[in-house]
């Protein structure tokens, strides 16, 4: 690999200068040192890098997290509050034992990364930084590598069988200057099933990596709401490896936030597996939302589905970069990718880069990317039935994102997400 330019070298030195690598046992120290070495070779992303042309990396690259005011949520209860769950709370990236469920007594193997990192050997060594390393394609993901090197905490979960209660990660943002690095490792043994919930803005600047190893015939459900703090910034990356006949389903709701970059790397490594990843993003004003998804079909007869919907207004920017790679051996692949934006005024911007790269000859792959305004005929039809304009608009916005929400298998969660969306739209009417 070519040496970094002086400029990139300086930027990386400045960034790492502010970071402290946590103390740890042998296994994690090895993973962290490996990450630092990889990072030193790749440097931080620049605006000219492919996949960073739509999204400026500067505030993620900056040594200091830019300040982000903490939102007063008033009487609003956090998402998933009513769910019977195993709850794990982080405030500005710091674990809160008093607010969290008793992990030792949860019936599931859940540990904190901070704890398992102290051991010299742990099963997580086969996943931590490993799927992330596999996922350094088709482009490098330096912020994920940075996370592997410096993450201070996270959860390490191993499940066998079906976990009845969802595991719920609740991230609160209380400090205007917090800079948090969390790294989660999830391993589903053969035939296991679990639901992971995530909600909250986490920090002024949040960097989160999650590596998921979905064993043969295992089923993983992921539903995430990224909080609605206006000024926070977030870089998140999911690295997923799926075994034969496994299922991975992930849905993300993003409302507000100055910058959100959600990356996903999903490798369909065993035959007959299925990966669904969906997102609904709502932005108004100073909002930049980026979904960058890479799905690698590396085995026969797998299905993947991407459904991303963005509703943008008053200068909000949405971007989508999605790629499906179908390897030669991945015959009978069924790949579907849809990214759509609803632009509610002339100032909103949607940038999309859908890509297909196919080496197998017996596949069905499709992608569609559209951006448009509210359909005037639909609006008139609703109004002619007596529905006022604001309510009619909200109904049509909800209808637009419905396809993404339908990707949530559990109706209860889908309904809760829809309700949050509705409240968001109602609040926006006053702006």
């Amino acid at each position, binding site marked *: 690999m070519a040496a970094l330019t002086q400029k990139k070298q300086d930027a990386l030195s400045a960034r790492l200068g502010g970071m402290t690598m946590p103390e740890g046992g042998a296994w994690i120290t090895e993973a962290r040192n490996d990450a630092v070495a990889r990072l030193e070779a790749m440097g931080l992303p620049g605006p000219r890098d492919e996949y960073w042309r739509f999204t400026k990396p500067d505030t993620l690259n900056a040594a200091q997290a830019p300040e982000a005011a903490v939102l007063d949520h008033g009487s609003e209860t956090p998402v998933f509050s009513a769910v019977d769950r195993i709850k794990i709370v982080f405030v500005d990236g710091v674990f809160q034992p008093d607010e969290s469920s008793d992990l030792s007594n949860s019936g599931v193997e859940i540990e904190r990364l901070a704890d398992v990192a102290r051991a010299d050997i742990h099963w997580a060594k086969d996943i931590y930084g490993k799927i992330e390393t596999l996922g350094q394609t088709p482009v490098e993901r330096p912020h994920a590598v940075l996370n592997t090197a410096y993450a201070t905490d996270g959860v390490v979960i191993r499940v066998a069988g079906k976990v009845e209660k969802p595991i719920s990660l609740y991230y609160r943002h209380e400090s205007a200057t917090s800079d948090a690095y969390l790294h989660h490792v999830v391993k589903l043994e053969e035939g296991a099933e679990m639901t992971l919930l995530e909600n909250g803005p986490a920090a002024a600047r949040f960097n989160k990596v999650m590596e998921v190893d979905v064993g043969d015939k295992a089923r993983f459900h992921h539903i995430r709401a990224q909080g609605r703090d206006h000024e926070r910034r977030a870089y998140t990356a999911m690295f997923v490896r799926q075994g034969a006949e496994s299922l991975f389903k992930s849905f993300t709701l993003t409302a507000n936030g100055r910058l959100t970059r959600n990356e996903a790397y999903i490798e369909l490594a065993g035959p007959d597996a299925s990966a669904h990843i969906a997102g609904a993003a709502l932005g108004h004003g100073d909002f930049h939302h980026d979904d960058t998804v890479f799905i690698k079909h590396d085995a026969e007869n797998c299905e993947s589905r991407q459904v991303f919907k963005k509703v943008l207004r008053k200068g909000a920017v949405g971007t989508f970069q999605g790629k499906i790679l179908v390897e030669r051996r991945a015959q009978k692949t069924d790949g579907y990718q849809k990214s759509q934006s609803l632009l509610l005024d002339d100032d909103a911007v949607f940038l999309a880069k859908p890509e297909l790269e196919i080496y197998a000859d017996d596949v069905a792959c499709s992608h569609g990317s559209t951006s448009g305004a509210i359909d005037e005929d639909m609006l*008139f039809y609703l109004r002619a039935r007596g529905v006022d304009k604001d309510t009619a608009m909200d*109904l049509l916005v909800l209808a*637009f994102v419905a396809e993404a929400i339908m990707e949530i298998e559990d109706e209860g969660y889908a309904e809760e997400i829809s309700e949050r969306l509705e409240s968001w739209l109602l609040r926006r009417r006053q702006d």
Partner: protein
Amino acid sequence: MLEIKNLHVKLEEEDKQILKGVNLEVPAGKVHAIMGPNGSGKSTLSYVLSGRDGYEVTEGTATLEGEDLLDLDPEERAALGLFLAFQYPVEIPGVGNMTFLRTAVNAQRKARGQEEMSAAEFLKFVRAKAKELKIDADMLKRPVNVGFSGGEKKRNEILQMAMLEPKMCILDETDSGLDVDAMKLVADGVNALRDEGRAFLVITHYQRLLDHIVPDVVHIMSDGKIIKSGGPDLALEVEKNGYADILAETA
């Protein structure tokens, strides 16, 4: 009920006059029909009355029970009791028919100062009305008009009409795309709503709908004006001889 005086309408986008002085009065309890060749302005009249964008009223008035319609938003007109059954009912993917109906019913109740219906009340109400129109539970569950056949769409329009209980119903080419059985079902639905306090304006190309929904008065529209009015016989005359004779006679 509905009073239209000297109504002149042009397209907003281009300098094209569509309505050139329409005069029409539909009293409560009556059914009036408007017939006319393609492009005579029949559908434009229905859109202008219901408040669709894209038209500019250059002259004249339209009132519903004395209230000026033309300055109101479409939803305000609906709350006053105006209802348009669309020629082409709009498909709305992602909005369930039931959600749509409940939102519409409650929006109008709210606008009229009535209490909103509870979910249970509404369900009972919609089921009763739907049954009369042979609309099954599946049609209520599906997204609005999505995947509906032509007949189902029109029945869904009449269902909305039955639920919203408007005072003034405009039916725009409700017979288009219907076979005889579907037309009969739709006509029965309309006839069931006829009463002293309600008026209808039925816009149609063909006389056949008027066999089922018998009008009190038939108007012939051509080139943006009503050129002739008469009893139900006028529709039969059109059916037999076409519009040419009438056009020649009034030219």
